[in-house]
């Protein structure tokens, strides 16, 4: 048989239907989308607050704390996985969304990114808002957040992608098919139907597609994120 890149026939829609028929792939997609959205949102909120605190307030221990948080960037996930698993188990969170999300709710990189971004917001803006009678909360929401919108967008996208790609932690925490993420679903699918290359590749395409679409639509931001992270793969 000669080497060829194009398929013999383009009947592949059938393969995709078959994937959904055999496993709950739609559910996996929904799970991953949900988890990635929540983790991106919570990282945004937590990182923006912390970044603001670090960038615009002076208090004892600030720099030490910031340095400690950045230091956490190099902590291997393996170093925390065993205790985390035991606690999640004890709290009855195995096989729940909260259990899967637990280590993903914050992003150390996000704190770093937001501090850099917020530091660039001129202090005069904040002072002007305060003089006009904005309270602390309004300063944050109406002045700081809009000013760093690009950094927030970058963080949201990157965190969404990271959570979507997450593999080992969900593997440890999830037992039931209904809670599987796309990466787990794909591995399970591959192990079960490994000879049926047509189906397995269709499943692989399905699990990349959402990320691919995000990437193509928001390309500019993703490239920026790639440059700014430099921190994770």
């Amino acid at each position, binding site marked *: 048989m000669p080497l060829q890149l194009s398929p013999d026939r383009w009947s592949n829609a059938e393969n995709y239907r078959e994937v959904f028929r055999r496993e709950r792939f739609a559910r996996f997609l929904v799970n991953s989308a949900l988890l990635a959205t929540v983790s991106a949102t919570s990282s945004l909120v937590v990182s923006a607050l912390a970044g603001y*605190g670090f960038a615009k307030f002076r208090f004892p221990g600030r720099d030490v704390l910031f340095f400690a948080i950045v230091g956490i*960037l190099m902590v*291997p996930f393996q170093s925390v996985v065993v205790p985390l698993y035991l606690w999640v188990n004890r709290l009855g969170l195995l096989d729940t969304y909260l259990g899967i999300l637990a280590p993903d709710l914050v992003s150390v990189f996000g704190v770093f990114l937001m501090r850099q971004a917020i530091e660039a917001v001129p202090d005069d803006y904040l002072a002007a808002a305060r003089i006009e009678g904005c309270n602390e909360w309004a300063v944050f929401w109406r002045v700081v957040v809009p000013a760093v919108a690009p950094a927030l967008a970058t963080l949201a996208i990157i965190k969404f992608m990271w959570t979507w790609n997450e593999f080992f932690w969900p593997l440890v925490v999830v037992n039931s098919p209904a809670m599987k993420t796309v990466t787990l679903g794909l591995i399970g699918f591959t192990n079960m139907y490994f000879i049926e290359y047509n189906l397995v590749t269709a499943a692989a395409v399905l699990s990349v597609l959402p990320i691919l679409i995000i990437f193509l639509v928001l390309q500019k931001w993703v490239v920026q994120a790639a440059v700014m992270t430099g921190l994770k793969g």
Partner: protein
Amino acid sequence: MAPSDATVAVALPRSFSSRRARELMTGYLYLVPVAIALGGTIVVPILKAMHMSLFNYVLIKPQEYGFVGLGNYTRLLRDETFWLTLWNSFVWVFGSVSLQFLGGFAAALLLHQSFRGRAFVRTVTLLPWIVPGVVVALVWEWLYQPNYGVINDVLLRAGVLRDRVAWLSDPGLAMPAVIATNVWRGVPFFAIMLLAGLQAIPEDLYEAARVDGAPVTRRFWHITLPLLRPIIIVATATRVIWTFNYADLIFVMTGGGPANATQITSTYTLLMAYANLDFGYAATLSVVLLVIMLVFTVLYLRVTRGIESVT
């Protein structure tokens, strides 16, 4: 009345000090969420892991549970597999990062040139970086597949190979094979980082050098490389840390096999926890991983004279 004067006199300093106090408090308040989250999911678990590493704690042998002091650490020193994984980690990290760097640098220099369709090529370059590691692992597993895999097929047709090669189940080839996959995945990262660096170098510098008659190699060594140094330092450091900790690819492609040929310390830790349910020993390994990363970071920052000079 005197009291009114008194209130004014007192009120000023009080409001001043309370404002200062409030400002202090606000600063801390903004950090509360991140402190709780990181404390709960990283700091306390690390302490807990250190504590667990002092215990014999195998989930399926509860009767043997007990304090063993540094017993797990002496076991580690005598564990030949651990030393093998450490060596494998070194090969894995060094092989992956150096080749990713070279490939990424070449790609960045290429993408920095102007040619038709450059925007498209740049986009495509980034693709391996955004694809989930698990998908990368599966796809490459198929490529390496001995009987149907494209790699064997192409090499046989080209006459490079005479027989089919079982890339991932040959102890001598498995590590190079997974490294090749990791290189493919990591090149975009370096390419994008270095491209951003290249674009930040003012064109005047090259112009001046050209006027002075500096050949292209001189321009590279005396302008491009020194100006990219900060980016190179940060990118390689983060990449080394990340690759050392990264387990997904090996976990899916070989599971650390054949015969531990691709077992790196991070997959070994996960194996101990997840397959052997030996939580005490896994915790010990995880503490060692953390120490290795600490030592690396400190040394690296000292050698390259600090991250501060970079940012």
